[in-house]
């Protein structure tokens, strides 16, 4: 009886639990998967994503490393060279910066510089983004840096089910994956069946989270729930908004984005990262290049301001919220000033 399965199977789960389960399942399925990072062992990570792994798989599979991010990622490179699949945890977005040289100069390039002979199947998990009242250096969104580095895949889930599926896909990938975990969604709940997790298409597939016809909100990670909420609120204004969750920034599922915008004729890109030099520019350019004749209005961006991440007491002014998204939608030239004679 299917009702019995539903009764015992689906239950509320948080994104952090789904990530933990993904690590556990990946480690059980493949002895080459090793987790390493700061406090990931006994403590289970500061966000508890690795809770119980050291206990279940031993300290050699889930290792508390010395406190040195370049060393963590650098040793992961060597481990991958010897055939392991390291999953590295950076404790917070900005704490990962000491490892950027290893990431940019080795992790991203090793396959290429060795003409395919030394692929590095490394997953770098990075809790990112703001909205949790974190003090300085705990709330950065630096995905543009990773996106601009050829050789890296860049992935970020927005739902409990995707968190599991994308992390399994990242660990299974033979390419290095920067896995960005929206930390303010760690405790977001959804009904989920941990013993029969939903299939998630591989890395590089966007998903339409909400069907709509008036305009497309292109977004990812922590801004997906914001855009869904904005889309609901927009109904009162008579706008039927489509929401595309990119899930993967590299590779970018251009086809889903382009198909959506060609249908709706309008687009707003929404993300927390600073606008200047941010992912929104790349997305807006892609839409302009491929949807020009379908566009009714310029592509707009709603992003974090071009400021260093603000103090917690000011972050609500910085983070793109529902109102700011709706304001942008309102500016999509619904009633052309040209045709109504309003222009002067």
């Amino acid at each position: 009886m299917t009702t019995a399965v539903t009764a015992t199977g689906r239950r509320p789960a948080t994104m952090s639990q789904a990530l933990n389960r993904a690590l556990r399942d990946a480690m059980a399925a493949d002895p080459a998967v090793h987790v390493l990072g700061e406090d990931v062992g006994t403590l289970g990570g500061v966000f508890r994503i690795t809770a119980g792994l050291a206990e279940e798989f031993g300290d050699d599979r889930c290792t508390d490393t010395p406190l040195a991010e370049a060393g963590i990622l650098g040793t992961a490179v060597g481990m991958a060279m010897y055939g392991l699949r390291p999953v590295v945890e950076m404790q917070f977005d900005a704490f990962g910066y000491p490892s950027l040289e290893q990431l940019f100069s080795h992790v991203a390039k090793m396959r290429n510089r060795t003409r395919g002979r030394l692929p590095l199947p490394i997953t770098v998990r990075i809790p990112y983004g703001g909205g949790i009242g974190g003090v300085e250096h705990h709330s950065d969104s630096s995905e543009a840096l990773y996106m601009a580095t050829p050789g890296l895949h860049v992935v970020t889930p927005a739902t409990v089910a995707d968190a599991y599926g994308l992390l399994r896909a990242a660990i299974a990938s033979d390419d290095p994956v920067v896995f960005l975990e929206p930390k303010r969604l760690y405790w977001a709940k959804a009904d989920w069946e941990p013993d029969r997790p939903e299939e998630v298409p591989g890395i590089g597939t966007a998903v339409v989270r909400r069907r709509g016809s008036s305009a497309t909100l292109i977004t990812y990670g922590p801004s997906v729930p914001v855009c869904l909420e904005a889309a609901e609120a927009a109904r009162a204004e008579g706008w039927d908004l489509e929401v595309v969750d990119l899930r993967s920034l590299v590779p970018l599922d251009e086809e889903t984005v382009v198909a959506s915008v060609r249908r709706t004729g309008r687009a707003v890109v929404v993300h927390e990262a600073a606008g200047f030099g941010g992912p929104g520019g790349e997305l807006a350019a892609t839409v302009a290049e491929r949807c020009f004749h379908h566009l009714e209005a310029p592509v707009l961006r709603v992003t974090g301001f071009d400021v260093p991440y603000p103090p917690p007491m000011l972050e609500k002014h910085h983070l793109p919220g529902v109102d700011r998204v709706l304001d942008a939608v309102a500016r999509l030239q619904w009633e052309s000033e040209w045709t109504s004679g309003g222009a002067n």
Partner: protein
Amino acid sequence: MTVLEQPGSHRPPPSRAWRPRTDPAPLLPDEEPYRLLGTPAADALDPGLLRLLYGHLVRGRRYNTQATALTRQGRLAVYPSSSGQEACQVAAALALEERDWLFPSYRDTLAAIARGLDPVQALTLLRGDWHTGYDPREHRVAPLCTPLATQLPHAVGLAHAARLAGDDVVALAMVGDGGTSEGDFHEALNFAAVWKAPVVFLVQNNGFAISVPLAKQTAAPSLAHKGVGYGIPARLVDGNDAPAVHEVLSGAVRRARAGGGPTLVEALTYRVDAHTNADDATRYRTDAEVAAWRAHDPVELLERELARRGLLDEKDVAAEREAAERMAAELRDRMNEDPVLDPMELFDHVYARRTGRLRRQAEQLRAELAAAEEGTDR
């Protein structure tokens, strides 16, 4: 088990009975650089090993001069010579077993070649061809590393993974005096010590990081003294004394293989040539200094020892030099052939599978190449 119950994780409050966690004395380096040539111990050295080292040194020196000459002929874009450091290069390669891994820096092509790598393949990086012209797994030689000291954590991770797998594989990582100032040097040594990874760190202290002398690089008593801070035993050795370097490195490799953990080796040597062909060494060092080191040349030191013990006559010397000339001529001939690179390969190794963007860019380049071809045909 709580944190406090875990062995080694609980630190008692300081008391009068405080003692260091390990005894630092055995970790300290030799008071004098370890030497064999010119000492009574030299008499006991295995003649076969000495002849093997000598052959490698002679060919290594010739390789350095040939590669430098290739830069003048435009066949190499740049060559960071290891002339004067051949004893370190050769000993590093010979201290390892086949199953071990070498992690060279960009100045260590000679070590890679002494390990069996094809000289032309080893030079692709420096001739403008693909960055790593060889399969690192074939001879277990990691890519020649340009960002200084960044390959040291790789050596630690690989050695750690090997140990976890139960394989008795050792990694030997090479770095220069300048590289010891990098953060990755520190992190690699620390990780290696904590994990007891089977790694040997060889610091070739050649006196200069391009132009910057050691005194501007560190205030440590010696680079070998840095080991004690990590709980790693260190050895100091005359880097121009090939059998001494070989013995010290072999001992460190044996110790690592037996589960004894990492060793830091500082080899005192000198870069007789400039940093690269593009460098002017007269701007930062005197002729007298270079001359003094030329008088302590690794090839001549070993040659003298072999002659003293009657293990080498003029005929042998001539034969070794002839072999080196043949190697140089072959290298010259092969390097004079223009490598053929396929531009379309640009897109082949970025990811396991090309992304949509890379597919489009590949098509663009293919069309450009076809158009250029058509243009030439007309």
